[in-house]
């Protein structure tokens, strides 16, 4: 796991992108990882079926926060229905190096919340699909 914390991960952790809130989000969701208490909120601005803008907020470990930060970058401009179908690979590709199974839920929390926002109900854990 120690090789996970590369510079760009720490950068996303310490300087999260798209962090904060939208004035009038057209979709949003929030969830916690009950095992560790990490919490993430995602707010989307959807126009013509496309994700025009996104903000996330929350607290937690470097894995959950950096993964969420990178995810917001990946999805800007994406069709909402495609975002709803994202698999865990998007997160795994963003972070680059395999995450230990015990921390997988940390990495997937942002994606889970994004998908919940996209489908309008609580989504399952992406790693259990």
């Amino acid at each position, binding site marked *: *796991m*120690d090789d996970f914390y590369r*510079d760009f991960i720490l950068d996303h952790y310490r300087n999260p992108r798209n962090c904060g809130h939208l004035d009038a989000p057209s979709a949003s969701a929030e969830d916690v990882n009950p*095992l*560790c208490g990490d919490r993430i909120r995602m707010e989307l601005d959807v126009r013509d079926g496309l994700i025009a803008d996104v903000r996330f907020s929350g607290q937690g*470990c470097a894995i959950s926060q950096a993964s969420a930060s990178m995810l917001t970058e990946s999805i800007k401009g994406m069709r909402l229905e495609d975002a709803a179908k994202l698999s865990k690979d998007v997160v795994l590709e963003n972070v680059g190096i395999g995450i*230990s199974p015990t921390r997988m839920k940390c990495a997937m929390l942002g994606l889970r919340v994004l998908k919940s926002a996209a489908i309008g109900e609580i989504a399952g854990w992406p790693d259990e699909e």
Partner: protein
Amino acid sequence: MIALDDTKLARVIGDFPILARPTSRGKRLVYLDSAATSQKPNAVIETLDTYYREYNANIHRGVYEIAARATDEFEGARAKVARFINAAPQEVIWTRNATEAINLVAYSWASNALHPGDVILTTELEHHSNLVPWQLVAQRTGATLRFIPVDARGELVLDDLDALLEGVKLLAITHVSNTLGTITPLERIIPRARAAGATILVDGAQGIPHLAVDVRALDADFYVFSGHKMLGPTGIGVLYGKRALLEAMPPFLAGGDMIRNVEYGRASFNDLPWKFEAGTSNIADAIALGTAVEYLQTLGMDWVRAHERDLLAYTLERLAPFESRGLAIYGPKDPSISSGVVSFNFADIHAHDLASILDTEGICIRAGHHCTMPLMDKMGWSATARASFYVYNTTADVDALVDGLEKAARVFKL
């Protein structure tokens, strides 16, 4: 101060087979999570093995040889636990864990004894297991919850204790905080709660593994604990209750072994302690908990306490230089009122990341809310890292932790 070449300590370490097994990365296992569950000595593991290989049988009703041996060992284990806490065997009820023991009291005693307006007094330190059952009891009975506050160091604030005790029917209080290590001053609180007419339940899950406990001297009405935190196996715990209270309580779970006589339409119930033990007991694990208690008695609880106090003092000493680098240590920093637990956060490294980095070095610590979410909220911590000690830990384990912190600082470019 403990010497690492202490022969007693070396012998103790040799008794725990898991400590001799390197991790998959070839590191020495540095187990600093005994507050979650303790490791088990050979004697305990072998007790289970011997039970299943030599005399596994259902108890109490069997007349054949192995059933008689199983019954003797099972009731013998109860007697060992009773002696360990200075109780009578009838006052020792086997449960799965401390949590079930608390729930037993919540269902059988509290649901009947509490009425609207009655007060349950507990503390802001409690583990969820000694809080949520009382929330549900309050919902069922109309009783209300009240809390003894903690200060910023994690010590109970007793200034208004007499006011807090007004109208209190039940005091449910932990012996030791699993998050901060605080040893609560029961010897000051219990007499006043007694004088106020409260029934007293002590959550001893973190008490009995680390401190000599005499339930009579403590004057608790109920004292609960889990075997797995005191060198015993998973799946077995204890409810100690004063005999007169237990006698007056209705049964909790119903079924085999707890009955005296059954007709289709009604049943009468067995004597203590069996009245509260329904269905086939966890025979093997109860017997093995007896072995764990014997092991602790052989070590001597005074040695256990002194060893942990010394380790805690050493840890605080080694961690002090990190404070200027962003290390925050929570809980009382006085080893005389703290059990072997150190909770902390290190700069902007989240506790889970810290735990993952330490794991790569074979160091096992816990990160998170430690089942004390309300305390975390109150203190304003989203998570803490926690190192906790037991009989087999050494200053070398603390040194490994310190090296691990240095590694984490490097990884996080602090």
